[in-house]
């Protein structure tokens, strides 16, 4: 028997365009699995030549789900390029606004993308979604949809637009907050917090305690013993807006703590011809292919693994409880990403509540125009999905000459590819010829979804092929019959 291919095309309930191709050999075992990012737009190319102060608006459109992460990371990068220290008020407004991004993105992922798998993974694929959830779990589904109203309103106050916001400028933010803004924020944040507590309760009582989630947590195939990287605050606590990068190994030992300015010493990237996304790795270890021993992960689970504490009341307790119930750190089970995400949502809303009482928020001093330009800047932020790095160089007219952006999904790209092989080798029964059950393929997608990949973000590019034909293998759902369809390049 010759080789055959199983496709998940496209991977669904993730953001962006991605596909899985499984190569099965004649002996019914898996030769290779590719998690492929299917498109790129080429930001690192077309950002060259732009006036650098436009980059927060331009790079924000790398990703619509974490647009604020790019917007804020870009602004921080410009602070450094212009050599400006933003006033304390600007920093606080940015940090406060940014917690909203974490909550927004995490809730969206949890509700729309992840939850159907944690509630009814084996249901008909066509109802395995938020709409289907409305029938089975009407309360939680409508709570999740209900959060959108508050999120939208809060984001409007900070960013003007809820998606692709407009407030970051070099050395500060565009406008000051008025007292009525803060009052409105307090009200909205209070309402949102109630919903978030409901969601936390649901997660703890209905998901964590479920057999399904427990079996996922105990499934060795959803486990990778890897390196982890994340930001830590000055007290080594959980932080999103600013901090130092910390790397630990799979035993939890600290490997490095460094400023983003030195990131090129630690990070390098591998590029291949089968994905429009690169594969970052630790420069000192080198690229060793998809071997978990050498792989680095970022994101909610990585953050929980690298920080010493989560410094809010409810969030802090939940953090301790999670670690205890999973047997200590580092936690390697990918399904724990969901849990970490919930903790971060809670932490963020608590931080927002705290910060809204800060009188500094109301100062009119929102931008610093002074500073010695460096014509180069690096900025880092914890995006919802993990470490996000922007790095720009400019000429003396502040026109961009080099742009490098490493997104969290790019960081996790190697891990996703590695884990898929484990999951597929354990769960895919290939002895049945070409027939593969959809619910089994969904087990692969669940592994991918745990990382909440943002494939739009990940899209760097290389395509070395010159063929003018492109083929897609279609596997029919009912019969399992395969058809190879060819497309001509236009």
């Amino acid at each position, binding site marked *: 028997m010759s*080789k055959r*291919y199983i496709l998940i095309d496209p991977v*669904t309930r993730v*953001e962006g*365009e991605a596909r899985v*191709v499984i190569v099965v050999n004649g002996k019914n075992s898996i030769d*290779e699995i*590719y998690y492929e*990012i299917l498109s*790129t*737009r*080429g930001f690192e*190319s*077309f950002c060259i030549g732009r*006036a650098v*102060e*436009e980059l927060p*608006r*331009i790079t924000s*459109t790398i990703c*619509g789900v974490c*647009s604020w992460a790019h917007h804020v990371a870009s602004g921080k990068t410009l602070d450094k390029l212009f050599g400006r220290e933003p006033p304390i008020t600007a920093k606080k407004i940015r940090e406060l606004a940014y917690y909203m991004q974490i909550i927004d993105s995490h809730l969206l992922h949890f509700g*729309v993308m992840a939850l159907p798998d944690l509630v009814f993974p084996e249901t008909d694929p*066509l109802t395995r*979604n*938020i709409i289907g959830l409305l029938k089975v779990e009407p309360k939680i589904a409508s709570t999740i949809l*209900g959060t*959108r109203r508050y999120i*939208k309103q809060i984001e409007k106050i900070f960013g003007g*637009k*809820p*998606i*692709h916001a407009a*407030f970051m*400028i*070099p*050395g500060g933010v565009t406008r*000051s907050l008025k007292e009525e803004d803060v009052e409105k924020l307090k009200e909205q944040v209070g309402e949102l917090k109630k919903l978030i507590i409901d969601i936390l309760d649901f997660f703890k009582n209905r998901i964590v305690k479920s057999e399904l989630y427990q079996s996922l947590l105990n499934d060795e195939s959803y486990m990778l013993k890897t390196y982890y990287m994340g930001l830590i605050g000055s007290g080594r606590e959980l932080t999103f807006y600013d901090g130092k990068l910390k790397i630990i190994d799979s035993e939890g030992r600290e490997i490095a703590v460094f400023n983003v300015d030195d*990131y090129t010493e630690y990070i*390098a*990237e*591998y*590029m291949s*011809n*089968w994905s429009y996304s*690169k594969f970052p790795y630790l420069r000192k270890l080198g690229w060793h292919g998809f071997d978990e021993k050498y792989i680095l992960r970022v994101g909610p689970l990585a953050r929980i693994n690298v920080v010493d504490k989560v410094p809010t009341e409810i969030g802090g307790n939940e953090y301790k409880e999670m670690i205890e119930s999973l047997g200590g750190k580092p936690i390697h089970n990918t399904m724990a990403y969901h849990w970490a995400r919930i903790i971060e949502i809670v932490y963020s809303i608590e931080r927002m509540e705290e910060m809204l009482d800060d009188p500094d928020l109301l100062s009119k001093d929102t931008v610093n125009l002074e500073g010695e330009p460096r014509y180069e800047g690096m900025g880092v932020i914890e995006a919802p999905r993990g470490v996000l790095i922007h790095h720009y160089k400019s000429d003396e007219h*502040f026109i961009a000459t080099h742009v*490098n952006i*490493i997104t969290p999904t790019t960081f996790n790209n190697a891990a996703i590819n590695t884990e898929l092989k484990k999951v597929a080798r354990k769960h895919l029964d290939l002895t049945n010829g070409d027939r593969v059950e959809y619910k089994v393929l969904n087990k692969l997608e669940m592994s991918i979804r745990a990382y909440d990949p*943002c494939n*739009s973000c990940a899209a760097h*590019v*290389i395509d070395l092929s010159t*063929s003018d034909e*492109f*083929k*897609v293998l*279609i596997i029919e*759902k009912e019969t399992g019959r395969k058809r190879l369809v060819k497309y001509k*390049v236009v």
Partner: protein
Amino acid sequence: MKIAIVYGAICGGCDVAIVNWGEKLIDIAKKYDIVYWNAAVDSKLEDLEKIDHINIGIFMGSIRTDLHVKLAKLLRSKSDIIVAYGACASYGGVPGLATLTRKEKLIKDLASTITTEKIEEEDIPDPAKIPELLKTNYALIQIIDPDIIIPGCPPSSVSNEELAKFLLEYQEGTRLKEKIVFGEENSLCSICPRRPEDLHKIKMPGIYRLYEVKLDENKCFLEQGIICMGPATRAACKAPCIKNNHPCVGCMGPAPGVDDVGLKYISSVASLVMVDKEKEILEEGLAKQLDKIVDPIGVFYKYTLSNSLIAKLAKKSNKRDEKK
């Protein structure tokens, strides 16, 4: 009835804009089956191919690969109504800034970032080959003819309300008499809360870049010497950026009657720069101010380059280079 949401090259912001319907999504889901929507629904490409008829096809994103062309044509062939949703589908969007960058250059730039250390072409089987990039970025409307165009990066809450209303009132089988573009038949200035002293006699006191000055929270941006795309941009939002003290960047696309934003803007803004000091500072002084616009493409065509007249002219002119 059936709705399908299909992607070109996207960022996901349009998806979030749809999710931001919140509870309204429930009403829409009562009337329609959402048969395809990668971000939220588990149907695969083969499922989409099997569906004979779709009532409303919503397309998000620009056209960047051969797969996007295929998906756009597939959706058009099955749908009664096609909605070009968002700036990318409508005008090419931010990815359109790569319209005049050759594909080879684009790839070279991405391969030469500072951290890219190792590049290898792996031996991969044919079915695992990824879609091919097209020569350039296109707006959806350059590939197929949509019935409704909803501009915006992403479409505003006003436009989303309008779309929800359309969907809830839509009767099966109805075709539109003519193409609809969402938004008002006016430029953003018409709804801008910042009122210049005399809308027809705005003076720009020079040109300042966004990093140079502290922005006044109430004054017309043009009167502060800040480039604001409002005059050439369709009013299809409630000026949220301006209310947040950030000039308009033109994401709603050309104002009614304008088909090339940059040319329109050059004609109009040029008249405003130092209009009262021309005879003192002369050509030299004016040139010095205009040189502050260091990147006309990035400022004037941030969302609309793909389908612009200037890009068409450049393509005609640059053909020889492409053959080289």
